[in-house]
């Protein structure tokens, strides 16, 4: 592997994290929030694997990435279940409708 490929991976990581965060700042739909989280986590996972290879401990990086995959799948599962329930009880998926904090 040479410089250019590692730069490519690095750009992919930064790009994914950036796009995920941008979507979290912009969206109003609850399910799209889950999509944004998934994108963010893929960036983090790629970064872990990449750094593991770079430091000479590929197995450690991969086992951490495994933990991250499990965690983010569970987040997706519970997040989607919650979104479905919110739609049923409140009537809409817009986050403006569901923010009921008293001011």
């Amino acid at each position, binding site marked *: 592997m040479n410089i250019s490929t590692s730069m490519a991976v690095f750009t*992919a990581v930064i790009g994914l994290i950036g796009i995920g965060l941008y979507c979290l700042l912009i969206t109003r739909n609850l399910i799209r929030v889950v999509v944004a989280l998934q994108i963010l986590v893929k960036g983090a996972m790629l970064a872990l694997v990449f750094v593991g290879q770079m430091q000479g401990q590929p197995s450690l990086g991969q086992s951490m990435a495994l933990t991250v995959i499990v965690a983010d799948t569970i987040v997706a599962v519970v997040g989607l279940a919650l979104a479905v329930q919110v739609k049923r009880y409140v009537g809409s998926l817009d986050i403006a409708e569901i923010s009921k904090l008293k001011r």
Partner: protein
Amino acid sequence: MWFYIILVGIIFCAYQAVRDKRLLLSAMWLAGTSALVSIMMYLLGAYQIAVIELSVGAGLVTVLFVFAINIAGDEPIPNLSFIPKSLARIFIVLAILIIGWQILPLLNFPISINQDTGFQLIVWESRKVDLYLQVVMIFAGVISMLRLLTDDFQRQIPTEVHE
């Protein structure tokens, strides 16, 4: 050369996932992103993780999304965001620049794809606490999802059954 193509593909798919108005298409673009990320990890030399990510990210999660979107409905929501888009864009670029600048000096460039077979050893032996925590998390997630989704399943039963 392949790396560049996949890089462009990832950025494109991710951006489309964010920008598309319909949720189902968004989920499809997300599946595409997962597949491309998994291929990139394969090219980096992490074979086991690539397989797991392909099956979970591009398979399981996409099926879940399709389910959820079908149940919840796909109505359009007015897209006026609370934070002005230009402010968000400036912020993101700033954040990325700072993070990138911090990480850049850490990249030691001459690296090789050294493959050791230690993956199994590390997951099952050295990092046992991680393993136990993952098992607990999976159980907790499954149980909570079941509780959440069967709750309203019972409400469909007509109320004459209650005495």
